[in-house]
């Protein structure tokens, strides 16, 4: 393993991502800023091999090193121009009672990162597609390589070579600069997303509850497995959930920069898995209706909805452009699409089968453990008491409905999008949204408020002559708001 190559890439990704965030002009909290710098950096750097390939520049370690350096420096320019405004990362230490959870998460994270480094990419979908292309691109210095001279089973339903160049590009970079199996970029995404998600939960609920929710989230067998098994779905989830979260932030703050930022993250998720476009197409009218009900002017609704879908359309175009340039064989999506559009009984069957065959089946339990049962329990409890659905809880539920219905529609339109194999991983997008819903649910908020009050009361006698920590202040403020 080439550690200097890894450090170079981590720095390049961080500065590239940080520069992109500066370009969007969104203000994130320090940890969120650091995490999203890495997440966006991974995405931006993944475009570099595609540009080199377009320019017919050989994909060598040296060329990638120079190209990544130049692109990261260019993207850092907005950062350098505002260097005086740049604040250093300030981190508040976790509380004593968070440590048991953090130790468990650390252990799980170490095991995941080790497996990601240690084992070669395994799933058939990548071995017969993007990983295969990447392996021979690293050897032959071009994405258009000898792989296309072998039998790729194009006469069957397999279409793995036509998938996004996102994994191909990152695998080429990491194989040439870091490690023969590549793949450790997945750990970068996993760690960055997990840290951000935990800090987000800590802002919503008492840290003890945040720890418990994260534990349930971590212990979803398949979601955990895909933190070290190379496929598209985990990366897609990271960008989709980020996009959805920042969209809800836009709706709360009405800051158009947040809308563009959400659009960018959604666009990245489309670039990774193009069928995500279906879900974004479902969110767009909901956004327009929401803005209409907020009495926003019609022109503004059109502009804002247009901005929302802009990056998804742009990245979808880029994805198809790259595939047309880098895959020297043709693929007709039309052959995959069902033409039985008015078969509503089939649509209804797909609607129920995702729940019965995937989520609440015995196989589903092996995949998601008791996570969905826990969600249903909290939801039903919430309906009975306290029956208060905050705006954030409703947004999360809406996101859950969009993903579920989007998967139903995909399974209906594309017969090869099988209920168990394809929808199973597509449901990953739901999981963080469900965790967010649970955190915002009335019942959990009641418990959180109780714990916050107890903690504040317990700390009052010790206040005299002592400084209250930032997080205690923050929790108190949150509690008062409620």
């Amino acid at each position: 393993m080439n550690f200097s190559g890894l450090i170079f890439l981590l720095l390049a990704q961080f500065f590239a991502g940080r520069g992109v965030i500066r370009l969007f002009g969104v203000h994130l909290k320090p940890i969120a800023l650091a995490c999203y710098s890495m997440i966006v950096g991974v995405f931006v750097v993944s475009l570099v091999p595609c540009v080199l390939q377009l320019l017919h520049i050989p994909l060598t370690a040296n060329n990638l090193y120079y190209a990544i350096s130049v692109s990261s420096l260019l993207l850092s320019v907005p950062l350098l121009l505002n260097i005086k405004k740049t604040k250093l990362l300030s981190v508040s230490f976790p509380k004593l009672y968070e440590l048991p959870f953090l130790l468990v998460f650390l252990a799980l994270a170490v095991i995941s990162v080790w497996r990601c480094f240690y084992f070669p990419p395994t799933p058939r979908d990548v071995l017969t597609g993007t990983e295969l292309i990447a392996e021979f691109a690293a050897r032959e210095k071009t994405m258009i390589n000898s792989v296309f001279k072998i039998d790729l089973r194009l006469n069957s339903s397999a279409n793995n070579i036509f998938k996004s160049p996102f994994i191909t590009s990152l695998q080429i970079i990491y194989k040439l600069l870091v490690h023969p199996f590549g793949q450790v970029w997945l750990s970068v995404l996993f760690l960055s997303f997990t840290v951000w998600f935990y800090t987000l939960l800590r802002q919503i609920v008492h840290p003890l509850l945040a720890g418990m929710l994260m534990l349930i989230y971590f212990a979803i067998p398949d979601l955990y497995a895909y933190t070290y098994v190379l496929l598209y779905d985990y990366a897609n989830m990271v960008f989709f959930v980020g996009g959805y979260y920042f969209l809800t932030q836009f709706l709360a703050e009405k800051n158009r920069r947040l809308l563009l930022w959400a659009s960018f993250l959604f666009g990245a998720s489309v670039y990774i898995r193009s069928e995500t476009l279906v879900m974004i197409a479902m969110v767009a009218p909901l956004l327009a209706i929401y803005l209409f009900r907020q009495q926003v002017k019609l022109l503004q609704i059109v502009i804002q909805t247009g901005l929302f879908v802009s990056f998804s359309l742009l990245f979808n175009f880029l994805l198809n452009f790259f595939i047309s340039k880098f895959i020297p064989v043709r693929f007709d999506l039309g052959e995959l699409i069902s033409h039985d559009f008015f078969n509503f009984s089939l649509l209804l069957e797909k609607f129920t089968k995702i729940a019965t065959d995937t989520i609440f089946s015995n196989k589903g339990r092996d995949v998601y453990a008791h996570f969905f049962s826990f969600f249903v329990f909290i939801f039903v409890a919430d309906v009975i008491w306290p029956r208060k659905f905050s705006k954030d809880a409703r947004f999360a539920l809406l996101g859950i409905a969009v993903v579920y219905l989007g998967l139903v529609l995909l399974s209906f339109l594309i017969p090869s999008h099988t209920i168990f194999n394809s929808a199973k991983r597509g449901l990953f997008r739901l999981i963080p949204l469900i965790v967010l819903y649970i955190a915002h649910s009335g019942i959990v908020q009641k418990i959180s408020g109780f714990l916050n009050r107890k903690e504040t009361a317990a700390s009052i006698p010790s206040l005299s002559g002592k400084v209250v920590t930032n997080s205690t202040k923050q929790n108190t403020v949150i509690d008062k708001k409620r």
Partner: protein
Amino acid sequence: MHFKINMTLVAILAIVLFFNIPFYNHWLNTNVLNPDISIPNTYKVLDKEQRMVSRFGYSYSVYKEMHSVFQKAKIKDPIVLLPPDAYLKEKKVIGVLVVEPAIYYYFTSGKAVWYDSPDVLKANCAMVPNNEGKITVKKINNREELNALLDIYKKYKLDL
């Protein structure tokens, strides 16, 4: 301080109780803490090929060995005809799974075909199970030998 200590005990209790739920306990012990792929047992074996074998199993070693046999035999541009998986099972071959031509290429950098591949007629060697359940390799010298093998293999369904 008492509050924080109490909360810490609650956190520890929550973790212990959580991992005592049968499903999570099973997941923890068989997957997360699986000794076969634990860090203490794997960090000593960092050779790339051994890691490939530990992930892809015996089949990987068989394909690598097969490819080296063709190279040693100095067969020019070997294209291997792979049997259907069902045929291997019928011949009671244990531990070897038939892979797609793409995965064979990924493993060995060598070309392989299935009986329905576009280039099947270019196959010049074959992977053939014998009656003792062992894998053998065979050079295909002419179209008759190839057709004889294809006639057998085509009786079996190909599975991805």
